[in-house]
């Protein structure tokens, strides 16, 4: 079977304290990558990324401070990428979801690791300082529910489509419980995400000019490996400065991006995100008769070495 390998990078909401800890302790390459990232950002965030992320006292607590979650998500996924390279697993495409698009660009070498990590910190600082608090809710239903019940969604923005029966909305914190109750009343399951700012909505417009000015300073290069954007489902070999703002400001359509690539090739989607949520979405997006497959590397239940072994087994089964 000739499956194209697509590496998936997840965004905000998929993080948790302790992500990748067992690998950090046991895998040299992952450990090296994490230390490299930590060294780059620790000064900017005012503490050691590693100590904060792997502090045993924090385990299980909500991990939702943008200043830490942004660089932590990039660091873990970049280090997993380095680890896969070392295992001689190389992708044909990268696909990023929201913040994961920055990780895509780093992996494809469109921007340097240092610039990418620092950009994620700049974004966090500006957004936390200058934009209102917000709340995000993942909803397990088709989006038709918004069309059919516009009143209960009137204070919200649709910010992401994961798959046909899962989407995300964002609004102000005071409105989110009302929405959750209305959905419960309709028999629809929803879950609040650990993200407290209004990405993908006009709520972050207050930082548009300042952020664009910061992004403008960054050196961009042509990519080594094409990326697929989950904002507009385009396959790109290079990105413009404004693309970085656009992926934060406009909505995500992950379903669309997956369809774009599976319309061209059968693929093995490898989720480098810490919770395996993108692999789960891919599973639901693929047609019943599709030859493509989703695989995850690690998840929030720990036992990284076991899940990695399972991944390796599955990968070699499909890729020979």
């Amino acid at each position, binding site marked *: 079977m000739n499956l194209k390998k697509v590496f998936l990078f997840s965004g905000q909401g998929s993080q948790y304290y302790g992500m990748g800890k067992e690998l950090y302790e046991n895998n040299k390459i992952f450990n090296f990558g994490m230390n490299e990232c930590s060294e780059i950002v620790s000064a900017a965030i005012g503490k050691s990324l590693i100590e904060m992320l792997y502090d045993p006292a924090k385990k299980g607590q909500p991990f939702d401070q943008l200043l830490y979650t942004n660089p932590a998500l990039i660091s873990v996924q970049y280090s997993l990428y380095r680890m896969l390279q070392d295992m001689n697993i190389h992708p044909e495409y990268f696909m990023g979801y929201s913040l994961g698009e920055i990780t895509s660009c780093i992996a494809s070498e469109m921007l340097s690791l240092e610039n990418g990590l620092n950009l994620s910190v700049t974004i966090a600082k500006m957004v936390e300082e200058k934009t*209102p608090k917000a709340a995000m809710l993942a909803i397990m239903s088709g989006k038709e529910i918004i*069309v059919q019940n516009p009143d209960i969604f009137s*204070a919200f923005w649709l910010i992401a489509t994961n798959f046909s029966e899962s989407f995300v909305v964002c609004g102000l914190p005071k409105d989110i419980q009302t929405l959750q109750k209305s959905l419960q009343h309709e028999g629809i399951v929803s879950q609040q995400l650990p993200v407290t700012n209004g990405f993908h909505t006009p709520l972050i417009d207050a930082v548009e000019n300042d952020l664009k000015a910061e992004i403008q300073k960054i050196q961009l290069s042509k990519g080594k490996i094409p990326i697929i954007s989950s904002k507009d489902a385009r396959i790109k070999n290079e990105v413009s400065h404004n693309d970085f703002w656009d992926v934060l400001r*406009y909505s995500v359509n992950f379903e669309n991006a997956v369809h774009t690539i599976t319309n061209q090739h059968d693929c093995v989607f490898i989720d480098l995100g810490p919770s395996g949520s993108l692999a789960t979405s891919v599973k639901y997006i693929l047609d019943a008769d599709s030859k493509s497959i989703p695989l995850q590397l690690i998840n929030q239940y720990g036992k990284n070495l076991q899940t990695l072994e399972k991944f390796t087994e599955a990968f070699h089964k499909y890729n020979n």
Partner: protein
Amino acid sequence: MKTYLFPGQGSQKKGMGAGLFDEFPELTKKADKILGYSIKELCLEDPNKQLNKTQFTQPALYVVNALSYQKKLKDGEKEPNYVAGHSLGEYNALQAAGVFSFESGLKLVKKRGELMSKAKNGGMAAILNSSEEQIKEILKDANLDTIDIANLNASSQIVISGLKEDVTNAQPFFEKAGVMFIPLNTSGAFHSRYMKEAADEFEKFLKRKRFYEPKIEVIANITGKPYDHKKVSESLVNQLYNSVRWADGMTYLLEKGEMEFEELGVGEVLTKLTGYIKRDFSEKEKTATEKKTTKKGVKKKEITAVKSTQDSLALVTQWNASNPIGTKVKSDFYDTELETRTEAIILFGHRAAVYMKGYNGYFDLREVTAV
């Protein structure tokens, strides 16, 4: 006065029509013969996962809608004064009005479903809290005038249709304008110019068909007015590649006076929609009355949604030019002095808003003044 409404594609769900197939075995048998498969099995069990495929969805909904109307008559209900159906549902309205028989209608719908299912690479999206004018303006600004308006369901609910790529590209432009943009899962660009080919094919198919004069008034999708019974064929062809003006049709009926609407078939999509159309209608009525009573108010009431967005934008720009973050303000609703913690922004596409220290919710910019 009473109107029966028949829903269209999107309302289908497994289990629909339960009980009806056994209650009307003759019609069910006729349907099976025309379709070449068991309609009861498709609707109740859907063993081959076909119910969401256009070529199956349309006949299935048509049969369930038609049988539920038969059930009404059987239960002794009177014929309604009006009938209307959304897109595919229009065939049920015409059938109820006697324009064609159950069997002839099903043959039309079968062909229609087959032709529509061949349309690929299409995309559709629902736009909420906007207006036809604003949507056209946004599409023009975005150089996307290849996108058409497919359904005008209510003033706050409009569906656009075009090539999938174009619809995807349109999304950020709508989001920048602050309106809700909801991509829908369809394969074809229904009710758009991209259905012209299918419409031409359908026209050939309709040439041999005979239509009778309706005995109940039918409201047409493409005009929002009663059907011209001499132009049934033309209307059905045009409907495939033109906007469904549903809100216009319902508004026409509301203008008739006391009107009871009842949705037949499956689900309550049209019932919910009617609620919004009624609300818009009574607001319009109210505005019309106010216009008559207050001469001065006339101009102000005519401001469109687009205009008010522009006003809000001007207000926000003006505010941010002279009031930095940390400005002390007074609100109409709070006695104490407040302090802004953000710049002014546009919320939900129209509301000029600003946030205050110590308060989570937004403040309407029109309700605060700098101290």
